[in-house]
């Protein structure tokens, strides 16, 4: 499911399946996309921040068009205890790899991978970031 901002319209509430993973997409070229994500975060229940939220920064292949402070995005990830992924959607290889990575995260968040929980995945990712 794709939404341009949160909260989701309440009309669809009763039909909506369980949400396992929220990916907030930030376009490095658009300051507005970062602002939008920051406002939308307020509508997310705290329980999601135990490994079911991830920030995806797109457009990093063109740093010359960068309009956001990437260190601010990393701080956002730290503040919300959620991983920040960087990718370039215009490059097919990176696009496919990123999609596969998100799919893997989704499988874990949905409980389809025995022995790995969303929370353990997030602490694993955070450990490797610090290294």
């Amino acid at each position, binding site marked *: 499911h794709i939404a341009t901002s949160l909260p989701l319209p309440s009309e669809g509430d009763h039909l909506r399946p369980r949400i396992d993973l929220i990916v907030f997409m930030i376009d490095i070229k658009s300051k507005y996309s970062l602002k939008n994500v920051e406002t939308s975060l307020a509508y997310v229940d705290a329980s999601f921040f135990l490994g079911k939220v991830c920030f995806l920064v797109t457009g990093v292949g063109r740093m*010359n*068009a960068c309009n956001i402070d990437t260190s601010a995005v990393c701080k956002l990830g730290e503040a919300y205890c959620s991983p920040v992924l960087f990718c370039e959607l215009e490059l097919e290889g990176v696009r496919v790899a990123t999609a596969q990575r998100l799919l893997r995260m989704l499988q874990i968040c949905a409980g389809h991978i025995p022995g790995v929980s969303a929370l353990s995945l997030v602490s694993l990712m955070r450990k490797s970031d610090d290294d």
Partner: protein
Amino acid sequence: NVDPQKTAFVLRKAWTLYSVTPLYRFRRGRLRDYARLLGAFIAAEKQKGLAVEVGVELDIKVALSSLADLRGSEQDQAALLVQLSSRSQASSRSSEDKLVWSGWFCSVYGEDLSENVPEDFTCLPLFLTHGAESYTSMVGSWFQKTFDCCFRRLAISPLNLSWMVAMWAGCKLDRATSAVELVFSVPRLSQPLDISYAIHPEDAQALWDTVQKTPEEITQEEVDVFMDCLYAHFHRHFKIRLSAAKLVKVSTAVASAHCDGIVKILHSQYLPGVLMLLTELAISQIQ
């Protein structure tokens, strides 16, 4: 402390920016030799027909000079100015020399680069050119071959343009003569759309004064607040979100800058500050 006469040539010209990696075995004492060698190189290139100048066959004279005034600290190398003048063969009077191209290398507070570079390397990371692209490429090729350095066009991101407009709009000038202007291009439309947003210089200065907490210091947060105010004002009136558009050019009474790496400096008082910022951008592109 900067002699305005020596630096007058910098003002009110559109300079194209490049970053340059350190020059290997560059000797200040050999400027006359270098000028001669570069002149011979250009003449040879023209013979090969690589510089297509339709019309009069022009004799190109090269002059290289050092500008001790154009630097930040004593750690910086003095700037290096390259000038190409033409003398029409039809006329024998030496006063017919016409400046056709100029370029200069400089470093203003570029210690970040020069501190970490081995001996025998000269750091002049910022290169500014004015004149035909064909001459720029010939001069660039000669320097690359002679000093084993690498030139790259210096692009300026919207993030850096925002810094520039916030900094320069806040500069105190005797008379704020021109408006603060931001030009945006709107992506993904069938026909490209450019939006020009002009602000009265006193209003921009007043806004920056309320945002900046410590004089002489600027933080990313302050730049963000300044820009957000401008975006919010525009959205209130026109319902257009400039924060989703691409900032391509900023203009103030101090200087103007375009994302393709073209700047024009209008005020000698703020020349060192502008060059310091551009040096920083050049260094971060090199590293």
